[in-house]
């Protein structure tokens, strides 16, 4: 248990979950506040543009509805990423179906940031965005989870449904691509 900024010991996710189950709605607020921005960043870096807030909300609603199945084998955040990733894949499948385009594969992700352009003011951010666009969907997921979220390879493997070894390879290839892209810019 780490100390909070106010000096009080910071409650763990499992303790907050127990409190929420006991009827304390403030525990839910603490949990959502603790993880919502990370989920939003993951969604954005994975290519989601519209409805990120709705996606994060759906992730929490689903997660809280099935909290009894969360045993704490992984961190709560990793578990939330896993749920969010499934929701993103479901969304994309539904979008593709309505557009009657090619069949969707598990690792097939949106690769265009379109509406994001207006949000990125900094030139460096624009360059990073383009460099991430140069990655395959899985590489981008692994790379952003590792670099932006700080997940371990084991946790990344859980989120993307792969192995630690494969996650390492994806990370290695991704950083080489991003480095070359930024060097050539």
């Amino acid at each position, binding site marked *: 248990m780490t100390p909070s900024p106010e000096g009080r010991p910071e409650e763990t996710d499992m303790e907050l979950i127990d409190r*929420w*189950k*006991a*009827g304390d*709605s403030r525990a*839910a*607020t603490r949990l*959502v*506040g603790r993880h*919502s*921005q990370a*989920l*939003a*960043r993951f*969604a*954005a*870096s994975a290519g989601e543009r519209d409805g*990120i*807030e709705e996606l*994060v*909300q759906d992730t*929490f*609603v689903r997660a*809280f*509805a099935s*909290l*009894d199945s969360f045993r704490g084998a992984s961190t709560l955040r990793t578990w939330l990423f896993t749920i969010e990733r499934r929701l993103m894949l479901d969304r994309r499948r539904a979008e593709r179906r309505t557009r009657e385009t090619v069949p969707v594969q598990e690792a097939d992700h949106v690769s265009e940031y379109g509406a*994001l352009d207006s*949000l*990125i003011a*900094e030139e*460096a*951010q624009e*360059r*990073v*965005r383009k*460099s*991430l666009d140069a990655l395959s969907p899985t590489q981008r997921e692994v*790379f*952003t989870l*590792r*670099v*932006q979220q*700080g997940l*371990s*390879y084991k946790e990344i493997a859980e989120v993307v449904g792969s192995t630690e070894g494969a996650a*390492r390879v994806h*990370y*290695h290839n991704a*950083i080489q691509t*991003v*480095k070359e892209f*930024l060097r050539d810019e």
Partner: protein
Amino acid sequence: MNKCTDSDIQELLPDLLHGALAEAEKVRVDAHVATCESCQEDLDVLRTVKSAAVFAPSIDVDGVVRQIPPYRAIVPAVEAPARTRVASWLVAATLALFVVGGGSVLMTRQNSSGTSVKPPPVDSGARVASTQPAQSRVPVATPNPRIAESVTPAHPHALALAAEADGLSDRGLVQLMNDMDTFDALPGSEPDPVISVDSGDSL
């Protein structure tokens, strides 16, 4: 710039960035990065990518929490303990087993008592050629006449053959089979009317 060959250190750079390394490991990675241009470049790239992750919209935490139903709404408050529910299922399954099993035994006994009584002995040839109605062959000693009537085969010859065949010697069986060879394939008379047990009406 020489490419770094220490893949172990390279893989730890994101952890260094997030302050997730133990002190001893942090000292080791810092010492390596200080002398390795390739890792310094990697670390710069990682810092840039990490800082570029600011474009995600801010989430309305209270709005999200409002959509989350309370735990009691997800898991009903009054729920029988699991052990009680399992015990109830076991009792119900045992009762069902007794009812079904007992009923089957009762039915089997009644059926066997209704069909095991042999008809009076007659010549086998004459017996199989007889067209006497089945009802007349049903033994009067049956405990439940309704059941006995319901299990009586439609064709009386079948019962006569089955009852007598059990007691026949090998020679008798051969004789019976020879007799059966002389039967006509088609019945010599109209089939007997089937009597409904419940209503007694002819169909």
